[in-house]
């Protein structure tokens, strides 16, 4: 893979801030933890850019993000219990009817709630794949595991998720 140019810290925040926040939110389930994680990641990126060796920038960035998340989990040793905050309601697509809004919020709450019940190893792979949009190879780089492991975790994660979602989709 050809080396990519090294972006500035501001570039990273600008281009990846939203993705990191969504990744963090879907993994942690609450906006405060997600915000903390984004700040922690940007801090690590700022420090790390000085010694970054050109290569796969995405792989490097998501490895930092994932490690920051795991460090936070180890530090806090707690699981989020709240479901969806106000942010999610704000981000819904505009102009649906009130009933549709309510149904969408419930749907999001159910899915988010199911995601949080997955083991962390499955959850992070599913979120990196279906929320962030990384390929299996990029996920393998991010979690420092073989592609076969990624494949297995995504499959098992989705299988568990479907069992947890009791309503017809």
């Amino acid at each position, binding site marked *: 893979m050809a080396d990519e140019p090294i972006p500035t810290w501001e570039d990273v925040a*600008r281009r990846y801030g939203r993705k990191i926040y969504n990744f963090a939110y879907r993994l942690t389930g609450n906006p405060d933890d997600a915000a903390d994680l984004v700040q922690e990641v940007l801090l690590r990126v700022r420090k790390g850019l000085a010694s970054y060796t050109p290569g796969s920038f995405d792989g490097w960035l998501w490895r930092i993000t994932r490690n920051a998340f795991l460090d936070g989990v180890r530090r806090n040793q707690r699981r989020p219990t709240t479901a969806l905050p106000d*942010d999610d309601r704000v981000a819904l697509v505009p102009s649906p009817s009130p009933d549709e809004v309510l149904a969408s919020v419930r749907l999001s709450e159910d*899915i988010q709630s199911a995601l949080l019940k997955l083991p962390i190893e499955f959850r992070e792979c599913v979120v990196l794949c279906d929320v962030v949009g990384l390929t299996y190879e990029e996920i393998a780089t991010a979690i420092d595991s073989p592609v076969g492991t990624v494949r297995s975790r*995504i499959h098992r994660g989705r299988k568990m998720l479907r069992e947890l979602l009791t309503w017809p*989709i």
Partner: protein
Amino acid sequence: MADLTTSTCDIGELMSAYLDGELHPGELDHVVEHLGGCTDCILEFRRLKEARAAVRTLPRLEVPERLLPAFHFGPELSAYLDGELPTEGQTLVFGHLQTCDECRDELHELDAARTAIRSLPGLEPPLLVEVHRERHEPRRRVRRGRMVAVAAGVAAAAVVAVGVAASSTPETTVDLDSFTNQHVARASVEAGFTVIPAVGPAGLEP
């Protein structure tokens, strides 16, 4: 909780990879062929697809502004104005301009400057002939010097060739005209080619 059928078939985790387009060609054939005839796997495949779709339909959240550094697009604004940024960049700058007065003001100034420059009248160059002559005069002298060097080289080569011919066997003959023509031709197309280092007139480089 829904009872997810556990398939006894061997394509289990290949199905998620199939959904994501992450199978190798050999695996792809195997999965497609199997799904064509196994009802259990088709059912499980549908459930996996639903789970995947569920996560993908989650709304994308906006990152709170306070988490991001205050940044501006100064250096990119001219390229944006000229439509020279990649599509992603154009979109980013456009979005930023909706909320940043500072960048919007700078963009207006750049646009005004660009318009002013573009409105300058085109001028005819009245001294074009003189400039042309001045530019080419030294070059012609150099070329004359090069011709002298080439001629000197060719002459020297001819002398050497005659010497070689004289000292070798009597049957060997040298066609001097052909020899000279070949060298002149080569010297005219290959920059710097001479048979021996040429010495040109003082002040003129070969």
